[in-house]
């Protein structure tokens, strides 16, 4: 049993996630974990994390190229709040242009001040691991 599976089952046992969420996570693991050409697993941990300070993006390449980015969560929050101050006319134009391209969603509705907090809190549960067939690894997580 892989570490990821153990982690998911432990979260179910601890009551941190529901059986449905666990099924979805295990499904995501199953799709990427069969040793195919490239292994990609995306986990959305449902366990609540507190005091998250940084968004980390870590790239480890087998050729020796490494990228390590650390962005303060407070900066993300401030950026989202800043974008919420953009005049509504601008959002209407953006939404109209996106609708022309076939993307129908309202950015203005997405960035209401109350939603920003919820969005940032939800981002804390984001955890993405990508393991490529050639050994390259990409991790996006909060700490």
């Amino acid at each position, binding site marked *: 049993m892989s570490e990821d599976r153990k982690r998911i089952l432990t979260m179910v046992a601890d009551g941190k996630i529901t059986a449905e969420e666990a099924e979805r996570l295990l499904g995501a693991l199953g799709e990427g974990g069969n040793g195919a050409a490239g292994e990609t697993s995306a986990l959305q941990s449902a366990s609540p994390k507190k005091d998250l*300070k*940084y968004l980390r993006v870590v790239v480890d390449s087998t*050729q*020796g*190229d*490494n*990228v*390590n*980015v*650390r*962005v*303060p969560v*407070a*900066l993300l*929050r*401030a*950026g989202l*709040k*800043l974008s919420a*101050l953009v*005049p*509504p*006319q601008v959002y209407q134009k953006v939404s109209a242009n996106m609708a022309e391209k076939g993307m129908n969603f309202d950015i203005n509705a997405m960035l209401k001040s109350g939603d920003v907090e919820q969005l940032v809190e939800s981002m804390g549960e984001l955890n993405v691991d990508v393991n490529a067939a050639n050994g390259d690894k990409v991790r996006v997580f909060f700490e």
Partner: protein
Amino acid sequence: MIFPPALINVEVGGGQRKPWRLWLPVILLWPLLVIAAAILLPLAAVAEVFLSAKGVRPFSLLIALSRVVAELRGTQVEVTSKSPVKRDHVSLYIF
């Protein structure tokens, strides 16, 4: 109270080139920022009164912008290439 970044450290090196490091003591700009804020904030506040009906909020925008700048503290970017052909290293730290 949230303070803006005090120091920015940029480091570039690699290959046969001599690495260089740049320390930018942004803290020295703080007095200028205070003066700029003292001038701009009242103007933006007055402008907000007249423009808020149109959805333009310069005062709030200025406050949000300053918050974004202040929250840059702790940002760290490191890119390293160790391939035999090209060895490069770029890093940026904001304190």
